[in-house]
């Protein structure tokens, strides 16, 4: 996760606990109306929120919209947050619900059925060639649900059981999807698309 420009990775249980405590603290500050805390939380979680929204909506523009809306919603709802050990799951639940609401609207649109995987927002200068390959080409080779699991695991730091709860699927299903996705991605990268 990016915090103040520095990449902090969840490397083990201790770091994991630290990250969770940090997110907890930020959410409690936001509940008190601290705007800086919201900015910091945005830096920590925007990638994960974007990844989840993208995996559900399959469209970069919509995913960007939902990402922004999610943090506004967090600002408004932080007062309801109760620390139960998984602040990221709480954040992603908001993102998931907003994404599903958007899907409901789209489900009535004929063109939605033809929606293709579109992960790269237009005019995004920060996206490198490598990002493009990973996000667009490699992920396009996955099934929707495989993509969802792998994006969540990579970007959110959630444990598989938490992802299972978030996606409302059995943990075994999530695990097998994850491993299948990683295999497919590795094959793609090795075979067809050199990085």
């Amino acid at each position, binding site marked *: 996760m990016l915090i103040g420009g520095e990449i902090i990775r969840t490397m083990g249980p201790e770091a994991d606990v630290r990250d969770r405590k940090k997110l907890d603290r930020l959410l409690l500050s936001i509940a008190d109306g601290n705007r800086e805390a*919201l900015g910091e939380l945005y830096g920590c979680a*925007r990638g994960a929120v*974007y990844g989840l929204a993208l995996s559900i909506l399959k469209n970069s523009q919509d995913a960007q*919209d939902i990402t922004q809306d999610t943090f506004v*919603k967090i*600002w408004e709802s932080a007062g309801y947050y109760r620390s139960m050990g998984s602040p990221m799951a709480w954040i992603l639940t908001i993102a998931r619900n907003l994404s599903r609401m958007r899907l409901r609207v789209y*489900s009535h*649109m004929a063109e939605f059925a033809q929606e293709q995987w579109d992960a*790269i927002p237009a005019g995004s200068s920060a996206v490198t060639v*490598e990002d493009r390959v990973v996000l667009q080409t490699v992920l396009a080779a996955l099934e929707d649900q495989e993509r969802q699991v792998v994006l969540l695991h990579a970007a959110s730091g959630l444990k598989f059981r938490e992802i299972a709860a978030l996606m409302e699927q059995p943990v075994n299903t999530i695990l097998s999807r994850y491993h299948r996705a990683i295999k497919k991605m590795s094959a793609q990268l090795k075979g067809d698309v050199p990085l």
Partner: protein
Amino acid sequence: MTDRELERKLEQALDHAGPDDVESILSRCRAGKGTVVEMEDMITDGTVKNNAGESGNGNGNGGNNSSGSNGSGNNDSKNNGRKRRTWSLAAAAAVLALILAGSGGGIFYWQMRAVASIISLDVNPSIELRLNRNGTVLSCKAMNRDAAAVLYEMGGGADLEGIKLDVAVNAIVGALLRHGYLDSISSAILISVEDSDQGRAARIQEELVTVVDTALQMSSSQSAVYSQKLTVDAGMEIQAQNNNISSGKAYMVNQVIALNSSLEFEALAALSVEELRDLIKIGAPGMPIGTGAAAIIAEEYAGTNVMDSNVVRDVDPELDDPVPHYEVELNLLSGEEFEYRIDAFTGAVLSGQQDILNALQEPGNGVGTGSQAQEPGNGGNTGSQVQEPGNGVGTGSQVQEPGNGGDIGADGAKAAALTHAGLSESQVSHLEVERDWDDGRLEYEVEFKCGGYEYEYTISGTSGAVLDHEMEWDD
């Protein structure tokens, strides 16, 4: 490349591709969250400003303006939701505005933002859409509480802005169907088109009738579709706003008043589209009693008004019948149905069986021992009981407890309801689950509150299917 390296690349790519514009979020986050945002603050595009008539209605519904707000403390998000896509375009829009200010592009921009047509859809929910000359939705506004509930899942209407009219109407009809407004054969939807260009109005009218009709047919709804072109003056618009109806329905009400000037606008505004249409058809001889009063009269006559449960299944206005009446259908828990015909203007009971509960208590009638006894869950029992034969639903159809494998459990029911609502348990309050029986079927009643709304679900206890749901303002 290891799995971890692969994941790190993904994480990095998401960081690069995702939005990085915290300022736009902070600009949408107001201090003192949870307070009602003033109406002026919520209007962003200037296309719809005339909400003065609604703001004073005192029911928290005054925010049904173009921004789709509901006027409650939690609606800043919906207000802000309206600004979707604008965050990434904000800078471009500012530059564009500067360019347009000094060029003919300004005229083009204005035309794209100018309202060319106003479309209203009325069932009981009244929804108004404003379009530019290209048929793109500029704003979508809930005119009453029912409409606000229908549009809730579409950001209060904000999600429909910027898309084509047919797509927006399709989405609205879908939501109306899901909310059960077009289930009954007696229901009707009125499409009204207001446009100074009569040719365009006719084209829009024709297109919408096709869109709505197709959507209804695909869902096997037998609702009627009515449409009208109209010209609305300022006076009528104020009447519409004061009564929380669309200008299309106001136009229809005025047609009735033109036939019978003794009728009052406010009372007529409360009638359904179907009732108004029938009144016009028969020359508006008087003020009908309305579906609510018809149901009460039928229940009193049947004696079911002493029961706790709602036995009124449907009230169908038949005002264009030779004897104008309301057809009221009562359904008992035992599955038995009773029909009553209530005179539409006098309230007299024209036909139907009187005092059905006493009649059915007679041995062999199979409905049980009395009105209260038919209610599973009465007498302090919260709903997990098995009905004893003869004590509840009847001798011929006593409830059988399904095996454990057939019961999804309270948690399963809760999950089904929350999933349907698109909410998580952490987001809702006052969550209650009650196990219940209905005509021998195991059901769960799930209730919770969120975002100023009360949700009520009936979930099948065996399949987890959503049998019924309601979402209404929490007063």
